[in-house]
């Protein structure tokens, strides 16, 4: 059986080529795992985020009043905020389990701990983007005004939130790989993050003298900027600056990648 096999192009493959092969294989694998893990997996993949958003809106509408958002309708405002936040959150949380879940794959020396992390970030972003499009299309059919006023701006803000999630995700994947408690703490922290990022309650409700502290949180910048691009007449607090968000995103991504280079053997060896 050995005679007619293809020569493995291992020795002649360029390192970038190896990386590309690994990424494409892992992308397909991750997609298959996400969509075909059990017979309804693909359905839940789409329905679960929709249901979460619906439940959040339901709680917000019927349990608490105060739905006056200056310059935007309440439900679209809420959907945009939640979708942006979940994109960030999933891109940050998902990679944390990636190294552990793919431990068996490090048998193949071509695969490094960073590969499953990046692939998960990418897959998560793709799924979320698909769902956002689904929301916009279905919303338009239901006469909910979800058409962005500045489509390019929305895409840029969406990308920024995604990058912020990836940056922190890459960093936290190393941190939680080395110290497993980090994962738990981060998971606990995401719930209050939903509240202080102005997702459910508008940031404009916060007294003016405290607003500057809210602006320390990069998610606020991303989410508010995306709402500004969605709704032309929307008003938010002053001081929204995407450079600040990108500073966070690139700084954490750089630190995360450096730590991956430094700790790759230890992440593999566990």
């Amino acid at each position, binding site marked *: 059986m*050995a005679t007619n*096999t293809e020569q*493995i192009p291992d020795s002649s493959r360029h390192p970038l*080529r190896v990386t590309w092969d690994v990424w494409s294989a892992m992308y397909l694998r991750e997609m*298959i795992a996400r969509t*075909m893990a059990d017979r309804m997996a693909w359905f839940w993949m789409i329905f679960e985020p929709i249901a979460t958003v619906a439940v959040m809106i339901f709680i917000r509408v019927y349990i608490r009043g105060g739905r006056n958002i200056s310059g935007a309708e309440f439900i679209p405002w809420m959907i945009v905020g939640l979708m942006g936040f979940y994109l960030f959150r999933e891109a940050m949380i998902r990679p944390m389990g990636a190294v552990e879940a793919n*431990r068996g794959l490090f*048998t193949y020396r*071509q695969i490094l701990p960073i590969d499953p992390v990046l692939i998960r970030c990418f897959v998560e972003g793709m799924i979320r983007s698909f769902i956002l499009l689904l929301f916009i299309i279905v919303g338009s059919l239901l006469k909910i005004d979800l058409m962005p006023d500045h489509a390019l701006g929305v895409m840029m803000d969406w990308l920024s939130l995604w990058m912020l999630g990836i940056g922190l995700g890459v960093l936290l994947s190393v941190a939680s790989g080395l110290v497993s408690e980090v994962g738990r703490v981060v998971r606990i922290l995401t719930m209050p993050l939903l509240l202080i990022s102005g997702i459910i309650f508008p940031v404009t409700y916060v007294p003016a003298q405290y607003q500057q502290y809210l602006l320390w949180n990069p998610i606020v910048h991303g989410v508010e900027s995306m709402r500004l691009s969605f709704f032309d007449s929307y008003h938010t607090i002053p001081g929204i600056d995407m450079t600040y968000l990108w500073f966070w995103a690139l700084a954490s991504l750089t630190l995360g990648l450096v730590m991956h280079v430094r700790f790759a053997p230890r992440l593999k060896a566990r």
Partner: protein
Amino acid sequence: MIEIHNLYKRYHGPHGGGWVLKDINLTIPDGISVGVVGRNGAGKSTLLRLIGGMDAPDRGKVIRKGRVSWPIGLAGGFKGSMTGRQNVKFVARVHGIKKSLTKLIQEVQDFAEIGEAFDDPVNTYSSGMRSRLAFGLSLAFDFDIYISDEATAVGDRAFKAKAREAFQKRIGRASLIMVSHGEASLRQMCEAGILINEGKAFWYDKIEDAIEAYHRQSGLITDVADEDDESEDEGVLLAEGASFEDAVKSLKKQMTKIQKQKIIAEYRQSIASEEDEIERIKAERHSLNRLHRAVKKKLQNLKAIEKNISA
């Protein structure tokens, strides 16, 4: 060819870590199959992992010239929710195979002989089926150097023979670096040997010398721990009218046999990766221990009787 220069490796455990491997310098030439011997925990598997590039040395380096496989028959990389076919495709893609993907899948399928189960999720497989698939997968690629950690021990007898044959067909074009306690298979597959003792590696041009040095170092003169002769079992009952000395002799023989099996089981447990496999081996070791105690008791009884008679 594999060159190892000034290689150091240690692991940081809860009790600190001594050096597992200290200042190893080796050159493994092309086309020569090498067996690695040493007692449990000497660092054989660690050396193999370092050669395979699954682990990074703390100091020194490993230079691989040629394509080196992952440890043959390792099923760790399979995703349980995916089918055998999907798993095979994944590994092929990682190794950059595109054009002959279907051919490769066909080869794995033919070799593994697991039939329809090839399209079932891997977590429905038995451990034997898993290792068949893993072994077929390793052999479908054309590596220059295969590394193997007790690989030929997977599967049932017929499959073992087939795997061994497939291996031997490759020797000549490809070489093999194997870690094994089965001395028969080491003698059969390898020409040269490496003995690992107290963090040092010693090269022997003949595997026979390596095994002999290993015996001398461990103080065992008998040919222990060959997994190939574990299946022959002698009856515990003695024939009627057998002489006293014969009875003692046969009991002693049984003792050494059980002792051997215990060593093998212990080793297998130390290299086993799947939980159910470890459970199985644990149960096996438990029953071996019981058998050991039973035989020991019998022997003591016989000795007591002997004393009574002589007194």
